[in-house]
């Protein structure tokens, strides 16, 4: 989840991070190494059917990575003083997100994208951003979108 973390870091560091971070759909194994490099406190909570890897870093920034028993990251939620590096968070889904954001250009406010293969929401204002992203097809049985938060 380095990448999610990297979004809050310097340009140079973010570029280094981007080679090694986990994105939506990736394996969760890279979370630990990322958290060490980013000096993020990581806390893993086990739930029935999934794990949540929570990284806390910087000035009140939190990223939660939701992983299936098979280790696949099916959802990511974030909160902090800035947007995360969405290119890293979304990985192969970034272009789809950008297109969806552009299609909603008339709105000047929160963004909510609910497409068959991707759900992303972005809310907040200066000093307080939050959001979630998940791939419905990757969701373990019994997990609902609002659980990714």
């Amino acid at each position, binding site marked *: 989840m380095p990448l999610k973390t990297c979004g809050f870091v310097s340009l140079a560091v973010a570029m280094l991070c981007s080679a090694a971070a986990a994105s939506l759909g990736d394996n969760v194994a890279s979370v630990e190494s990322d958290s060490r490099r980013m000096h993020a406190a990581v806390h893993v909570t086990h739930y029935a059917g999934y794990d949540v890897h929570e990284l806390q870093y910087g000035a009140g920034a939190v990223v939660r990575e939701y992983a299936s028993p098979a280790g696949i990251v099916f959802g990511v939620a974030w909160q902090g003083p800035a947007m995360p590096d969405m290119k890293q968070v979304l990985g192969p889904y970034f272009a789809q997100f950008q297109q969806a954001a552009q299609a*909603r*250009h008339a709105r000047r406010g929160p963004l*909510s994208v*609910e497409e068959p293969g991707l759900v992303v929401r972005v*809310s907040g204002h200066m000093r*307080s951003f939050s959001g979630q992203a998940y791939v419905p097809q990757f969701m373990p049985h019994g997990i609902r979108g609002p659980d990714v938060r």
Partner: protein
Amino acid sequence: MSDSFGYQVKMPASKHFLRALPPAALVAAAALMFSGCGSGSSSSISGNSSSQPSTGQNIVPIVVDGGPAGSLQSDIAYVSVTVCVPRTSNCQTIDHVQVDTGSEGLRLISGVLALPLPQENDAAGNALEECAQFVAGYTWGPVQFADIQIGGEKAAGVPIQVIGGGSVTSAPQSCTNTGLTAQQTADALGANGVLGIGPFRQDCGGACTLTGSSNPGFYFSCSSSACSQTEAALNQQLQNPVWMFPGDNNGSILELPAISTEGAATVTGTLVFGIGTQSNNGLGSATVFTLDATGNFTTQFHGSAYSQSYIDSGSNGIFFLNTAATGLPECPAPNTGFYCPAALATFTATNVGANGSRNDVNFSIANASTLNSLYTAFNDLGGASPGAFDWGLPFFFGRNVFTAIEGQSTPGGTGPYFAY
């Protein structure tokens, strides 16, 4: 012409600029611009008893209209702002600057700014630039100093952002990797600038003073060819102009009259500076909703609490829940992102301040695709936001909304808070 600074005001030739007009002239100008967009209507709301236009040197007219020439925006409130090269009479008045209670600091599109403002540099002598993130997009450009005059209030030597004005024109990854829209032009921004008068003193605050990976990455140190992220002291950051005023500096009031659910062609209102500092800006019967450290309160709806909710005049709708929760379908293009119910839908939600104060808000959501496309002001425009209620400009019609700035004393307590 000489303004109240005693400065000589030079007017740019471009028709994009309006003089600092008296309210009546501003309305006329807005109507003119509106008719230029193809409207045959002259409907205009001039105020009502709930927001009687105030008078005084601490007030300035605002207008909800189609925006800068050539565009037809919806639910954006605009004000004219005069900026000057510090300590000179070299000034320019810029019309159609968006009034935003969801951000802090003055930002102007470089293409409409014709003044040689001095650059703010860091300790190494490099130019300070900013990648500012909004939920709808980002702005990138240098931080420069200006004297600011809004109505009769003046702030000297204020760091502002000149969007798109730097030597490094490509925005850094902390902007582009948000995936959000670049708002580098008046067309993309829907305004000639943004006047951020939210509940904080600076736009970023303490987080941007931190070094290394703790810093959220808003500020950059730029040579003529490259930029690197940097920390910025509080006084180097963009400042909320209101708290830089010598007086009337504890907050502001946005006053817009009630309108019908059909909307209005244009609406005029008032931006009042200060809370309880003059005879025209008392809290009256308004309820104070104190905020958490990041500017949020809680909105309750159908048994769920949304603790990151907020009031934001810079949002052009009431954004809440989603289609599954409301039953309201999303509009087809070009209104994607807004709700399009078959009939006007009504809701009640409860705002709860950090201080425990409560208020039920009744609101309606109309079909964004069937509203009069020549109108620009609506109290029932809405869209989805599953995690938090965003009470945007539709919420402001018929209410006087107070924004108190952090650390500033008011008769309703110390900011930050919203009150209405």
